[in-house]
């Protein structure tokens, strides 16, 4: 249940952004999660609605975009999307790989008035 702790951090961030932007009500929050981030979206939505209950983001909709994982082979330089978990390069078979996308946990934007 680390979702709650991350949802609390998000609620605090959103409060800060809303204050900066002069919003009194936040209606929608757009976030991006990488494919390999081990967060259960439904649990996160429930945790966020609890964390944001007494804030300007109370009742706000959470739009979660999942970013597909992308790996780069450090041997031949090919970029590729893994079929399942982290896996060897499909071109040259090297296991020396770097994760380019898949661990994101970003707030993209907030909407409100």
């Amino acid at each position, binding site marked *: 249940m680390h979702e709650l702790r*991350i949802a609390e951090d998000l609620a605090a961030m959103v409060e800060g952004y809303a204050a900066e932007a002069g919003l009194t009500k936040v209606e929608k929050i757009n976030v991006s999660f990488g494919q390999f981030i*081990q967060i259960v979206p439904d649990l996160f939505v429930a945790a966020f609605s609890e964390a944001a209950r007494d804030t300007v983001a109370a009742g706000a909709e959470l739009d979660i975009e999942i970013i597909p994982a992308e790996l780069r082979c450090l041997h031949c330089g090919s970029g590729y999307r893994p079929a399942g*978990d*982290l896996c*060897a390069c499909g071109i040259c078979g090297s296991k020396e790989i770097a994760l380019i996308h898949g661990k994101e*946990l970003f707030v993209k934007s907030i909407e409100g008035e």
Partner: protein
Amino acid sequence: MKNILDRNQNKAEEVRSLLKARKVMMINIISSPGAGKTTLLERTCELMSGEVSIGVIEGDVTTDRDAQRLKKYNIPIVAINTEGGCHLDSHSIFKAIEHFDLDAIDLLFVENVGNLICPSQFDLGETFKLAVVSTAEGDDKPAKYPMLFSEARAVILNKTDLIPYTNFNMDSFMADITAINPRITIIKTSAIRGEGLEKWSVWLRTQLEQFSAG
């Protein structure tokens, strides 16, 4: 675009630079409950006391039983009771390290809460993560929890003495883990029987040397 974990990450970087300045290597130990983290720490204290000054931060959900087990080694221990929480974060580590005399410590172990998912999400400011898995959990743990194994510098495969009584397949375990993280060091131990611990302590000394050199 702002990282939601920035608050934790910034504090972790603060911990990391503080420890680097005071020449303390910190290892974040992550495993399932019952894999053998505390037993490994007991054996490590026995093997290295007098040579390396060890400190321990014990993360426990409700009791202080793990901290009690380590008291006999007369090492500084700070227990963090997460009161139900499933992981430690950098803020709790920052508070915990205030209780240590950092100049008197070379090596600080953090025994994270027993859990393979949540703790791997939170950078504590450690020098590196160490995964511990026991053979009784099955050989599929790296494949099922790739995040931890992709980030750990080493994995201890513990309870190797139990292999004859389980369906643990060493070949699948090794194939999965090297596919996820080709650079990971794999050390096979039976902490309770004292097997494999020499290799572990040699490896640990090398990490300490590299840390103090770098």
